[in-house]
């Protein structure tokens, strides 16, 4: 007989699990409500989900930083808290977009399960960012991904099914690479817990060729999986198709939340390599990110559909952010979170603007919902909407004083600082490439502005905001204000993020 194992409840530090448990509990609650009471108004579920997310945010805030829990499996550190906050706030802004005009609801929102799956996804992502155990990361990632595939498919158009299938298949392959990478790490170090991995690699040394092959190979395999989620070249193929197929808010959501979760994983994983001074990994990430931002910018130029353009633009933004990840300095890491925190408002806003103009019929183009022509001459028909859209576009192209500008500013300055600190001039080249890419990017954002402000309307088919409702207008109004007023909160926000990031040693 084996000795019974006794574990004291205190040592488990169960509070570290509370944010995810709230999300999961909320999801189960929604499922149960649906079980007992049919035909409830969907607005109720929206409100309930928002309430749960609110409580979740509260729980996240109440966590003590730098604590471990549950046999050291859970890790609550600065980057986990800040990324969870970004995830939850974005979710909070995303969910009310379900409340389109009451005579014009979309398919997915007719299911209470949609909201349950959404909360499961949030829980999965939260698990991903609040652990450094590769197994738990993987399980969380898959939970979130599975929910996400379904959420996309539930839009129930031909395009959304195609999108879900493509995403699912490629996601399966990426998951395979993730596992493969984890196995290599395990084979090399005998552990799947990254802090142990770091210690062991440190003591083993990584000098000889034979001792570097496996860690480096593991890094490449991981980079494939991470690159897929974050949509880096050449694993970005799914992005435009999936964004095109899914509903606009979902596309906007995907361009932020799963990415930030994966970036946290990347920060934890590649952080080991950067601390060990394995420069090859930094170079690898930088090369990939430079190719990503450049190619996707070029692709964005030739798109005919605004949503596809925004998809490519979000790929380019991701490439931008990844470049900073390769530096591993506190400032670089903080500015990544700041970037996403600010990018969130603008990008979600731009997609929300597409959403309120989404027609159930494709009135402007055989294939696309949002071709550029749809927006031509918008300034005369919907001046306020055109101005709002223009603000989002200007912000995305990084024009001060709108929010993304500050993100870019801090990001590029972190690259420049790094170059100054290490005395390596090649990082200055990187900064210049980033700036040049921003300049190219301005072209396609301004293209939409040109369409809206300078071109005459194409035909009698007026752009009608069929989906407009008070809820959507409120969310968009909030996003616009957050974008415009960023100059007033960027400083404290940066301080807050830097405090969190530096407190856990990143």
């Amino acid at each position, binding site marked *: 007989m084996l000795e019974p*194992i006794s574990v004291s409840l205190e040592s488990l530090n169960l509070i570290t699990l509370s944010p995810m448990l709230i999300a999961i509990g909320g999801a189960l609650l929604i499922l149960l409500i649906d079980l007992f009471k049919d035909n409830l108004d969907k607005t109720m579920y929206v409100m309930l989900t928002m309430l749960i997310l609110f409580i979740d945010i509260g729980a996240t805030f109440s966590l003590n930083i730098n604590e471990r829990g549950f046999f050291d*499996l859970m890790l609550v550190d600065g980057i986990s808290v800040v990324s969870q906050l970004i995830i939850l706030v974005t979710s909070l802004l995303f969910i009310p977009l379900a409340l389109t005009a009451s005579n014009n609801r*979309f398919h997915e929102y007719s299911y209470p399960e949609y909201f349950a799956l959404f909360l499961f996804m949030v829980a999965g992502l939260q698990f991903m960012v609040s652990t450094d155990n590769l197994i738990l990361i993987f*399980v*969380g990632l898959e*939970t979130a991904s599975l929910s996400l595939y379904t959420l996309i498919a539930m839009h129930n158009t031909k395009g959304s099914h195609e999108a879900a299938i493509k995403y699912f298949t490629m996601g399966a392959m990426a998951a395979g690479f993730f596992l493969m990478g984890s196995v*290599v790490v395990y084979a090399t170090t005998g552990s799947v817990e990254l802090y142990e991995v770091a210690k062991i690699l440190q003591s083993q040394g990584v000098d000889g060729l034979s001792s570097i092959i*496996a860690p480096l190979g593991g890094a490449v*395999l991981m980079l494939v999986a991470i690159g897929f989620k974050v949509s880096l070249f050449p694993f970005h193929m799914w992005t435009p198709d999936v964004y095109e197929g899914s509903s606009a808010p979902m596309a906007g959501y995907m361009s932020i939340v799963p990415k930030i979760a994966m970036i946290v994983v990347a920060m934890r994983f590649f952080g080991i390599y950067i601390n060990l001074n394995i420069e090859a990994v930094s170079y690898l990430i930088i090369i990939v990110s430079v190719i990503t931002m450049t190619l996707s910018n070029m692709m964005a130029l030739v798109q005919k559909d605004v949503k596809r353009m925004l998809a490519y633009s979000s790929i380019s933004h991701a490439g931008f952010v990844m470049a900073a990840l390769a530096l591993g300095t506190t400032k670089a890491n903080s500015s990544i979170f700041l970037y996403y925190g600010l990018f969130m408002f603008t990008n979600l806003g731009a997609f929300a603007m597409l959403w309120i103009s989404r027609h159930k019929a494709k009135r402007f183009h055989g294939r696309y919902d949002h071709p550029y022509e749809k927006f031509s001459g918008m300034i005369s028909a919907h001046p306020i909407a055109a101005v709002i859209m223009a603000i989002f576009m200007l912000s995305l192209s990084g024009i001060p004083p709108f929010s993304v500008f500050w993100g870019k500013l801090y990001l590029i300055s972190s690259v420049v600082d790094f170059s100054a600190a290490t005395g390596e001039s090649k990082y200055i080249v990187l900064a210049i490439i980033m700036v040049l890419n921003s300049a190219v990017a301005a072209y396609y954002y301004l293209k939409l502005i040109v369409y809206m402000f300078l071109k005459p309307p194409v035909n009698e088919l007026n752009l009608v905001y069929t989906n407009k409702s008070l809820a959507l207008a409120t969310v968009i109004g909030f996003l616009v204000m957050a974008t415009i007023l960023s100059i007033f909160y960027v400083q404290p926000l940066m301080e807050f993020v830097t405090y969190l990031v530096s407190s856990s040693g990143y």
Partner: protein
Amino acid sequence: MTTFAFYFFATLITLLFLVTVLSRNVLYAMTALAAGMVLISGLFFMLDAAFLGAVQLVVYVGAVMALYSFAMMFFDANKDIKERNGSAVTVFLLGGAIAVMLVVIFTAPLIGQGVASLYPPAEGATNPQAVGLVLFTKYLVPFEVAAVMLLVAMISGIILAGKKMDFSLSVVEATKSIDSKTIDNMDNTEKKGDK
């Protein structure tokens, strides 16, 4: 003896999986896959991982393959599948390159130095007990999250296969413009859908 058994299993597994990949007939592919899975469990048994061997049999052969077979029944399984394969050379090279790469990466640590597990199994525990010990202490959370994942998968399956997906509230025919009538119709269908 064990060396011989390993190479025997290894060769067979490789061959069977090659059949899986290369065969154009779904039934053949599936059968080969199932057989390969059975043989993999043999490897586990050889390593004294009896529990995992059993799980391998039950889950992959018993559940996953059975599910595949059921799914295949909806199609004409005897028909050859036409693949659009592009350049066979590219595919061959890519596959080969990745395979070589993985072999190199996986063998590198073995050449380097021996690796010890950080958490050796408890003294005197049998294999299923050892698995159980780890699974229900340290890995309880991933275990439960996996359960959530399965729940998610189940809900997803039910929804996506459900009747409500037969019509879509997200599209109307492109020729019709949106007028009050279509909106009324949509409202009606939505109500029907809710029931």
